[in-house]
Each structure stands twice: as structure tokens, then as C-alpha cells.
């Protein structure tokens, strides 16, 4: 977002000062043993999260969010934290030039990351959710040593009102946030469907959180302003736009390196509609969303419009919940389509690879279409024991532009040697240029405390990067990537 005009400069300073005061106020009181929203309402996690399994929201949790996190009493210390310890295990680590690099931290219990949250109720009509995340494995130096880094994560500030009359019940609000759909109250939204934080080491590159999930061409660390209405708790409408983060909203990209930013040309419009129905112990949502954006190829160079990627994202989603203590059942389904037009310089290019006979491959296509189907079912008993099953299927057009493995034109072999004219990528390479990735995840979890979730996910692949077998050209099969992910997720 560009700098505010001069007439707003004082307002900007006051706003920033206000935010700081809100964030820092009340340090004299000891922290309670539960996160900030619990402290605010005094309720158990289960009130807002289905079966207590965060972050999936109950109908009440959705209203808590839509009314701007303002239900309850303002806490003296508006802070909370979460931390994740995990262990990732890839089924087959043998087909690799350097297993210690391709599957770093495999079979090792690690501290995967931590977040600090600030926010909650600020006034009767204004509330916030601000997340700042530390990644202990954010980067690796030449010696292979990891370095930690902290940066802004999901953020959402809301101004809301709730009008109730004899014949109407309307929530209206505005959200300033940094990730398309982070403002959405349903957990089929792109920003929320994937839930357990994914550790950065490469042993986690095939765990469930790294499988295809819904997303937008314009990702996190942008800044958006959306307006929404929830009418009679039935019809939800949201519209807004996202653009590059700068100026007064720079705190929404705090700590993010330039290379990790999404730089958008102009405004990227975002639209969302959902129909919601509740009866008995059930609630059902059927919705759709769309977004159109132009994203610079290089976040550090935003002057040349010929380097723009153009995205048109659209999705339909549905969520059914059956919540009757002690049972919590949730079914989710999302289907997305993304049209991606590449910058001119990337279209019509001959790949460095050749085919097995040494003939040139087809020139790169100017655009691609990706389709994703993702469904998930979860059941939790007594907010303590639960399990889930999810299925994912990413498909799309074949494009030599996406080929990262192939025959070297000089040797006529597939080689990962850096000295080759066209070195191929082992383990996560793509020898077909097709994105098809499909599989399932089974999950079991235990919540011994309301703020501790211990779980295990096993992800099985039928297809990876376009093939069931030899997807990287080095003989690696999709099933070799099957992964076990065990985690302990704690919030305070």
C-alpha cells in the first residue's frame, strides 16, 4: 500500500503509537495459562474451535472472529504464544545425491518454530489478530549451519459492528490484513485449511502441510483492505483488494526479506461469497471466491511491467460441521482453478533439456492452468481424541517451463552434475513438466490439555510432479516420498 497522503501523516503516527500502546499495555499483571482469546472470554478452546482442535472454528468461533475479536473483556496482557516440536520421516531417503541435504533433519526431533500473538479486543468495535513467527531453520549457510529468523505472519485488524433488529441480524466490518482470505471465518479458506506449521528443513518437504493446498497467486505479506457483511448468519459477502505492503502497513511484512515478498502491480481484487445454514447440531457452508492479480517476477525489481505474472484464481468450497458434545465431525471440500500467464520473456523458450533422442523439447507455454481438489474429514471425541483423513489431487497443464529434470544435450543422459549443460534436480525434480500430485493423509491426534495437541500424520503419494514412477528422472517414485510427521503443538 502506498504512503498515506500528507494530510494523514499525523493520523498515521497516532495510529502506530496507538497500536504500540495497545500491544505493550498492562505488563504489570502475570500472564494467565491460556492464550489471549481464552483470557478475553474466559472460555475453553472448545467454545471457538471444533472439538478443541485449533484452528478450525465453530459457529460461535466464526461469530467471534467476524465481530472483530471483541467479545469479552480486554486483557491486560494481549499476548499469547505457540510452539511446535516435530519429527519428519521420509519413507525412502536413498535415491539422493546428498541425503543429508535433501532430507535434512530426517528422523530427528526438532524445535520447528514458534509464534507470538498480539491482539484481541481493543475497543467495542475494534480488534486484532497479529502473528509474528520465529523459524529456527530459516536459512542455511555454506557450511550447512542453520540460522533462525523472525518475521511477520498472518495479521488481521478489524473494525466491526453488529446490528440486531426484530427482523434482521447483520454483522458488517472492514479488515486490514496481509494474506488473502485470512479474514475468512471458514477453515476451507486458503489461509486456514493448512493448519499445522510446516518446519523448514527439507525432511518436511513431503509432509501433509507441504502437499498442495488452496492458495492464491498473491500470497502473504501483501496488504489488503476488505469489507464484509454477514446477513442473518446466512449470507456472507466480502470484497476488497490487495497490493504490495509499504507505508503505514509495513509492520505487516516486518522481518520478511525482500526475496520472500509478493510485489503486486496495482490492486488485486478479491471477492468472496458464502451461504451458511445451521440446523440441529449441523452447520453447512457453500461458498466461492475469486481473485485476480499481477505479481512481479522479481520482488526486488518492480519497475518493468513485462516481468509480471498474471493470476486468475477461483474456487468453490464447502464445509459441514456436526457438533454435539462430546462429538465434533467436520467435512471439508475445496476445488480451485488457477490460470497463470507468465511474463513474455518466459514464454516460447526452448528448455535446456532435450528428449531421449537428443531432439529439442517443445517451447515453453505462455500460460498454465492448475486445478486442485482437496477434501478432508475429521472427527474428535470429548475434545481429546481425534483423527482425520484428507485427499488431495493437483492437476494441470504440461509445460516444459516447469521441467526441472531432463536429458542433458551434451551427454544425452539425465545427470545432476553441476558441470552439465542442463543439470537435473534430484528428489523434487520434474521430468515431465506436469504438476500432477495426488495422495492422502491419515492423521490421529490427542489433546491431553486444551492448549496442547499431539498428532501424527502419514501422507501417501500416488503421483508426484506428474508421475507415479521416476518423476525426477533418477528413478524416484511418488511413494518414496510417503512421510510420517509427528508433532506437539503447544499454545500459551
Amino acid at each position, binding site marked *: 500500500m502506498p504512503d498515506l497522503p500528507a494530510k494523514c501523516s499525523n493520523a498515521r503516527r497516532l*495510529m502506530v503509537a496507538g497500536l504500540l500502546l495497545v500491544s505493550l499495555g498492562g505488563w504489570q499483571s502475570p500472564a494467565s495459562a491460556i492464550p489471549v482469546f481464552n483470557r478475553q472470554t474466559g472460555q475453553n478452546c472448545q467454545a471457538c474451535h471444533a472439538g478443541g482442535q485449533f484452528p478450525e472454528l465453530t459457529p460461535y468461533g466464526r461469530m467471534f472472529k467476524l465481530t472483530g475479536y471483541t467479545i469479552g473483556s480486554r486483557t491486560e496482557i494481549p499476548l499469547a504464544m505457540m510452539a511446535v516440536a516435530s519429527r519428519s520421516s521420509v519413507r525412502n531417503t536413498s535415491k539422493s545425491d546428498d541425503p543429508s541435504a535433501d532430507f535434512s533433519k530426517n528422523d530427528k526431533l526438532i524445535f520447528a518454530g514458534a509464534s507470538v500473538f498480539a491482539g484481541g479486543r481493543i475497543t467495542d468495535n475494534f480488534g486484532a489478530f497479529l502473528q509474528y513467527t520465529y523459524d529456527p531453520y530459516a536459512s542455511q549457510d555454506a557450511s550447512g549451519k542453520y540460522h533462525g529468523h523472525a518475521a511477520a505472519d498472518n495479521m488481521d485488524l478489524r473494525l466491526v459492528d453488529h446490528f*440486531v433488529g426484530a427482523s434482521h441480524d447483520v454483522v458488517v466490518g472492514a479488515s486490514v490484513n496481509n494474506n488473502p482470505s485470512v479474514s475468512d471465518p471458514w477453515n476451507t479458506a486458503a489461509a486456514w485449511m493448512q493448519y499445522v506449521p510446516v518446519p523448514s528443513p527439507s525432511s518436511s518437504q513431503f509432509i501433509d502441510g507441504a502437499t498442495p493446498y488452496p492458495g492464491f497467486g498473491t500470497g502473504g505479506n501483501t496488504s489488503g*483492505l476488505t469489507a464484509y457483511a454477514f446477513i442473518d448468519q446466512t449470507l456472507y459477502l466480502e470484497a476488497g483488494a490487495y497490493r504490495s505492503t509499504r507505508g503505514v502497513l509495513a509492520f505487516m511484512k516486518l522481518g520478511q526479506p525482500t526475496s520472500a515478498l509478493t510485489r503486486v502491480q496495482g490492486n488485486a481484487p478479491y471477492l468472496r461469497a458464502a451461504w451458511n445454514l445451521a440446523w440441529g447440531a449441523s452447520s453447512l457452508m457453500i461458498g466461492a471466491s475469486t481473485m485476480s492479480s499481477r505479481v512481479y517476477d522479481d520482488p526486488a525489481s518492480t519497475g518493468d511491467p513485462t516481468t509480471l505474472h498474471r493470476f486468475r484464481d477461483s474456487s468453490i468450497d464447502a464445509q459441514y460441521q456436526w457438533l454435539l458434545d462430546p462429538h465434533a465431525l467436520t467435512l471439508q471440500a475445496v476445488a480451485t482453478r488457477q490460470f497463470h500467464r507468465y511474463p513474455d520473456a518466459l514464454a516460447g523458450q526452448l528448455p535446456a533439456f532435450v528428449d531421449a533422442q537428443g531432439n529439442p523439447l517443445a517451447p515453453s507455454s505462455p500460460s498454465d492452468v492448475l486445478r486442485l481438489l482437496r477434501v478432508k474429514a475429521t472427527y474428535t471425541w470429548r475434545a481429546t481424541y481425534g483423527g482425520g483423513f484428507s485427499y488431495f489431487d493437483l492437476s494441470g497443464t504440461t509445460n516444459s517451463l516447469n521441467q526441472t529434470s531432463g536429458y542433458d544435450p551434451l551427454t544425452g543422459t539425465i545427470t545432476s552434475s553441476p558441470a552439465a549443460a542442463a543439470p537435473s534436480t534430484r528428489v523434487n525434480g520434474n521430468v515431465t513438466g506436469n504438476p500432477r500430485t495426488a495422495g492422502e493423509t491419515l492423521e490421529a491426534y490427542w489433546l491431553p490439555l486444551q492448549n496442547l495437541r499431539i498428532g501424527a500424520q502419514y501422507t501417501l503419494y500416488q503421483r508426484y510432479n506428474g508421475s507415479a514412477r521416476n518423476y525426477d528422472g533418477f528413478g524416484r517414485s511418488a511413494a518414496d516420498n510417503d512421510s510420517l510427521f509427528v508433532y506437539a503443538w503447544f499454545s500459551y
Partner: protein
Amino acid sequence: MRSLSCIVALSFLAQFAGCADTSRSRSLDDPKVTGRVMAEQVCSNCHGQRGLSPSENFPNLAAQQADYIDGELRSLRDKHRHDPAGAVYMWGIARQLTDAQIAQLAAYYAAQPAPAASPPPLDLSPAGRQLFMEGAADRGVLACAGCHGQKGEGNGSIPRLADQHRAYLLRQLTVLRLGPDNRPMGTVMSPVAHKLSDSDMRALADYISSM
């Protein structure tokens, strides 16, 4: 977008400056917020607008006896009720309610119209109907209607049962059977519930929820 940003920033500042009133507040620790506002802005998220809950997980409160609501809210505020649902959902919500707000909430829900209902068909849960109307003298089970009224309308601190969700009724009967500590205001019900079998409870819930 720039002007919109300004508007949002200035609106936020207005909120910081305390410009909001309490007529649509969701505050739970402000004694100036009336029971009616609390009911509309907070309680309605589970109990429904005007006390008609769309979810079987939460009781209907429309036309409930004011004395009953008053007593239960005090019991929840003071953490005397220990049933799981009461603790999970209501301890926090009720913890800072004033006596005046509790009285206002009770009066508000008592004044809400009950859903239009017709008498349950005679062939619906005959066992439940018999237990409700006549009890089971051979087992020492008193007739529900004796205290709750022939139409389940309740009386004073004795709750209205008519129009209540079946699942909620079943859960509360189970809680009462576990002992008086779970719901001190329902101590009188505990010995009655002890004499009810699971099938008795299901039959009663079938009958009462259709009243």
C-alpha cells in the same frame, strides 16, 4: 485505495479515542452494557436471537422462567455448576456479570415468545408421556408435570421444558443423574434422575422436545 486507507486509519483512531457507545457492545465486563445488548450481541451466537438456538448443543431460552435463568447464571458465574458444558461455554461468559445484568438477561429471555407449538401426538413416545404425566409409582419416579407443569411451562425456579432441544434434555438428565454437585440448582432433580434408566431418559426427551 489511499483515501480508503485514510478512512480506515481515522476510524481506528476514533475507536481508540473511545467514541464507541454501549448500545451494541460485546463487552462482558462493563456494567453499563444492558442484558438486552448482551443477549443480542453475545448470547445470541449460541442461544440464537430471541433465545431460539439453532443448535441442539445449546438450550433454547425463549420464554424460560426468569427465576430459573437468574439462578443458573449466578451458579455459572460463581462456578458452582460443574457440568462440562457449563464450565466450557459459560463460566467465562458469566464470570463478570453483575446481579443487575443477570436479572436483565433473565427478564429479557422470559419475555421472548416461545415458538408456536402444538400438543405432541398421543402416539409419540407413550412411555415418555406416561413418565412425564404420571411418573412411575412402582419405582418412586415422580411425574415431571407435577413440578414442571402439564405443558412443561415451568414455574419460578423450576425450568420450562417445553420446546427444548432433545439432545440438550438428554445431556442435562445425564448430568443430574451424576449427582447434585454438577448442577446445585437442580439438587431436587438428582434423586429423580437416579431412578431413570437410559431408555426412560430417551423416552422423556422424545416427548418433552415435541411439546
